[in-house]
């Protein structure tokens, strides 16, 4: 016997419930509440960390304040040391340019041959320093030169009886006692004097020699 299917639905639309065991109308407020609680926990954690961080910063700052005087003294000392070190470096440049000439001139005096007379011995003055830029002279001058060497030469003028005496003197100047101080010796001029100094004596030869000397090097 066939039974007729009959389904009666008397529920209003608002009275219908979901077939799901999890009810959204219950879960959603719970989730929203959990979000609030989560926020509160998050905020609480952040605030605790903030308080801790501030406390640590405060500790570090008070330690810094306690060490300030001692540290300032050290910084002052370090600044002074750096300044003195830089000053010393420049003064060492000066020392580097100090050349001892006394011994050299004493030896030259011993080496002058008997038949030779030195009339003048000279180390010419160095050329003036160019501390302004020639291309832009209006710019303020430089505080120091850009090169650190100054060339030095020794010029000797005198008279000798023979040219061989001059040559032997030049060889002496280029020899062992002066190798550290003097370099190549060149003849700037040589000429026989027109008249002998005394009647019956040979005419003397006037000469001018130039010895290249070791450069003054203003470096450490």
């Amino acid at each position, binding site marked *: 016997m066939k039974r007729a299917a009959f389904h009666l639905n008397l529920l209003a639309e608002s009275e219908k419930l979901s077939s799901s065991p999890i009810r959204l109308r219950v879960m959603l407020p719970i989730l929203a509440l959990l979000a609030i609680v989560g926020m509160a926990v998050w905020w609480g954690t952040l605030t605790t960390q903030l308080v801790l961080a501030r406390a640590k910063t405060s500790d570090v700052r008070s330690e810094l304040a306690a060490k300030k005087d001692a540290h300032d003294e050290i910084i002052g000392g370090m600044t002074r040391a750096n300044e003195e070190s830089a000053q010393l470096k420049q003064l060492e440049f000066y020392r580097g340019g100090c050349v001892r000439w006394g011994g050299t001139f004493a030896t030259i005096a011993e080496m002058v041959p008997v038949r030779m007379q030195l009339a003048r011995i000279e180390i010419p003055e160095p050329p003036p*320093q160019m501390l302004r830029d020639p291309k832009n002279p209006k710019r303020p001058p430089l505080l120091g030169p850009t090169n650190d060497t100054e060339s030095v030469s020794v010029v000797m003028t005198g008279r000798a009886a023979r040219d061989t005496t001059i040559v032997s003197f030049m060889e002496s100047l280029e020899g062992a006692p002066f190798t550290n101080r003097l370099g190549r010796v060149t003849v700037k001029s040589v000429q026989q004097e027109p008249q002998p100094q005394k009647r019956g004596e040979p005419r003397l030869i006037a000469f001018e020699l130039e010895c290249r000397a070791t450069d003054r090097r203003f470096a450490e």
Partner: protein
Amino acid sequence: MNSSIFQNMAPNARRSFIVTVLLGAASAMAYLFAVQPAEEALAKARREYDEAAGKLQMVNANLRNAPANKERLVSLDAALKPFRDEMLEPLLGSCAMRAKSILEPLAAGAGLSNMDYADMSPRALPLPRPLPVQLHRRQPVRFTAHGSYMGAISFLLRLEKEHPLVALQSLSISATTEPERQQIEMVLEWPAKGGRSK
């Protein structure tokens, strides 16, 4: 249509919806006005802590290096002393006057006579790196005298021995008719304080 959905909701669902919306808004407000500022404040506090901790680390390192720095200062002072001792300070505004007080006894001892001293323009020294605040220069003084060649050399030898930082810049010894009265001219240099770089 939206309002009809809301009106069609069961009272419980409607209440739940309103509560959810209110709680959601409250949590958004809590994030915006409590959590986010706290996060920013924490980040700032951590930056401040890192900065202060870094500074403290540097301070501690400097304090540990204090004895080494003191030693460095002592050795620098010792190295600078010879220069400070020889530094040519003007006397009555004149470097030549100061040079006179140094050279006169040596020149007289070497038998030189008619000594004269003249100020000259200073010469700059090359600049070191790093640049010091106080710069130094070469201070030349022209010294002229009469005497024998050997007298001049003995003066120079004694000067170099007693004042090793005095340098000979230029020299001229010219013979005259009297061998004991040659014309001597020397330009001698001293280290001296120059300008300031800052």
